[in-house]
């Protein structure tokens, strides 16, 4: 017990000091506290009414943010970590700050096991499993095994799983408390996909799966022609998707009824994020009207797609960390923008993934006819990106390679167009945000402080 008190006390002291030194956002307090008491997460969460873990490759930040917001709006005292703090040390740092009734914890899928060994989570939401930093978690199947082992420590937990992702649904096999969410066929469904696929192997008989249609990447309606396995029936299902300018509307059918949701977040992947958060909230008996209100107003916080204003330019900063993210990011930006400067800031440090081969798995065909007047490649792997563009058929007289990040921003600002988009890998994101802020850029989507 003394150990726990010491860990909490020192953790809070470090947290206070680091805030005082204005080094916000580090996971240092949790790191140190866990060194003192390795079981600290268990003690810190034992008094919560509900602990909900959100994990998966893409969308966990948005899903967890939105869910935390919905639960707060329903009157609960919610503790919630933010992106970048989704490893055990970060989760602990969040838990140290103040106690609450409900914890919504975004957890990195690769280190989930360290959390579930200690935290008796009531629910685990899994968004999807896509190709992401394969040199860290080298193959998805192995990742699935690791997650399965992580879940075995919390057999009582309700799993909220994406029915459209066969890798995710394989985690629901032989489990008791599983709820599925998914999309019915809609106007965005595609018969074929041009993206590189993964996870199209039957989890039962290991023969290839076939698809009736796709939503994006390997997410869709699948079945195994060799055995009886197929996409599970979704308890929470989206239908009648309507896309209009910067707004998506759809119906969410659930066992007790139906709600109509409207979100300002574009793209099919955000439908999944809204669906995952809303399904979990409905499971927790939150009133539908509360969910509708929060979803309607919700905008992603820092990181996903943040907009800055600088020297009469609107500059959008977008994190891309895997092929699906880049494919979808481009689709979203290109369909909504006029002539712009595009900047690709690609690094290969540990947090980015050392291997940049994934650039070739992204679907960048839309870029060929996009309305840009210049493409800038920057970062440690600026050259790799430029070669990628060259072989896609982009005209190279409108591509420049400026590896140094400050210089790349100078180049961007020297262009006369009023819009610019910066696609960043993980380690470039904070760097570009800092460069833009230092030059006096104002962020349009203010920090949603109530979220974090």
């Amino acid at each position, binding site marked *: 017990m003394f150990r726990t008190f010491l860990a909490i006390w020192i953790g809070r002291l470090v947290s206070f000091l680091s805030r005082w030194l204005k080094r916000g956002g580090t996971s240092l307090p949790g790191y140190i506290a866990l060194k003192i008491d390795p079981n600290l997460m268990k003690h810190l969460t034992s008094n919560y009414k509900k602990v909900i873990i959100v994990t998966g490759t893409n969308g966990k930040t948005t899903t967890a943010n939105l869910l935390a917001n919905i639960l707060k709006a329903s009157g609960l005292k919610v503790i919630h970590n933010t992106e970048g703090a989704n490893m055990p040390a970060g989760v602990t740092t969040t838990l140290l700050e103040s106690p609450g009734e409900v914890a919504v914890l975004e957890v990195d899928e690769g280190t989930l096991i360290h959390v579930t060994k200690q935290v008796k989570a009531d629910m685990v939401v899994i968004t999807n499993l896509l190709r992401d930093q394969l*040199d860290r978690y080298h193959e998805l199947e192995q990742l699935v095994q690791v997650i399965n082992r992580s879940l075995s420590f919390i057999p009582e937990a309700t799993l909220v799983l994406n029915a459209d992702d066969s890798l995710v649904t394989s985690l629901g096999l032989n489990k008791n408390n599983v709820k599925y969410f998914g999309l019915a066929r809609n106007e965005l469904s595609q018969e074929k996909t041009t993206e590189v696929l993964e996870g199209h192997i039957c989890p039962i008989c*290991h023969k*290839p799966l076939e698809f009736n249609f796709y939503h994006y990447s390997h997410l869709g309606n699948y079945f195994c022609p060799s055995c009886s396995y197929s996409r599970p029936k979704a308890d929470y299902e989206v239908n009648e998707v309507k896309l209009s300018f910067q707004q998506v509307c759809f119906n969410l059918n659930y066992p007790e009824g139906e709600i109509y949701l409207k979100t300002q977040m574009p793209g099919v992947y955000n439908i999944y994020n809204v669906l995952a958060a809303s399904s979990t909230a409905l499971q927790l008996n939150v009133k539908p009207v509360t969910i509708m209100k929060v979803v309607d107003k919700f905008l992603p916080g820092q990181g996903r797609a943040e907009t800055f204003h600088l020297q009469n330019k609107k500059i959008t900063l977008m994190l891309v960390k895997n092929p699906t993210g880049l494919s979808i990011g481009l689709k979203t930006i290109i369909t909504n923008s006029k002539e712009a400067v595009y900047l690709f800031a690609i690094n290969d440090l540990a947090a980015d993934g*050392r*291997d940049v*081969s994934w*650039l*070739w798995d992204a679907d960048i065909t839309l870029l060929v006819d996009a309305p840009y007047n210049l493409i800038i490649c920057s970062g440690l792997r600026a*050259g*790799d990106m430029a070669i990628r563009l060259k072989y896609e058929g982009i005209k190279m007289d409108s591509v420049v390679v400026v590896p140094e990040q400050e210089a790349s921003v100078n180049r961007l600002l020297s262009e006369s167009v009023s819009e610019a988009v910066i696609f960043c890998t993980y380690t470039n994101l904070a760097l570009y945000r800092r460069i833009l802020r230092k030059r006096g850029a104002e962020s349009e989507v203010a920090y949603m402080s109530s979220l974090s």
Partner: protein
Amino acid sequence: MKLRICHLYPEFLNLYGDRGNILVLKRRAQWRGIEVHITQLSLGDKLDPKAYDLIFLGGGPDQEQGVASDDLRAKGPWLKEAVEEGVTLLAICGGYQLLGQYYRTNSGETLPGIGVFDAYTEAGNERLKGNIAIRVEELGDETPVIGFENHGGRTFLGNASPLGSVIYGDGNNGHDQTEGVKYKNAFGTYLHGPLLSKNPHLADYLIGLALQRVYGEVELQPLDNSLELEVNRSVYQRFLSTKGKW
């Protein structure tokens, strides 16, 4: 002139941007006015050994590789016939392993390969991964072949010759400084993903070999490789000082 490319199991063997190689071959041929035909063959499809100039196989995750390897046993004789006839072939990572004599798993199980290459692979514990550079004799000393490797298997060559020798990185097995394999015009390598994108000299070498069999001695029209070679040079230099077994 026409370059007929066969892409095997594109939906299964596609782990690390492997399809980038097809794009590089296609563009480099098209930029020279060479017509390109790409045929994707997968499970159950017949492989006509006379129908293609260049055959490509990528790497895949374990399960996908298992699915492909079952089917590859049926296509094996056709593939061997093509290689004996001098068809150009490039097999990467998992594809390379499948074309060897066998793969021995950690549990001691032996999975037969189709034996295009006199090489065998044993499962290892640590994955060998990171940036790699090799020297390929046929391509001269001026520009190394660079890439990224990430493999659990250790491959050992029988009587076959390696594709190149390791400058830094692990190569076939992390021990004997060999990387990849070559037999006639068939090549296997652990340099995965978009290998040809930063190695235009290797890409052109393969295109040249593929066309020669049909059209005799071919002189490929030079292209502007300044971007590719500059990136090759800078990436090579960047990792030369910081890492390397050799």
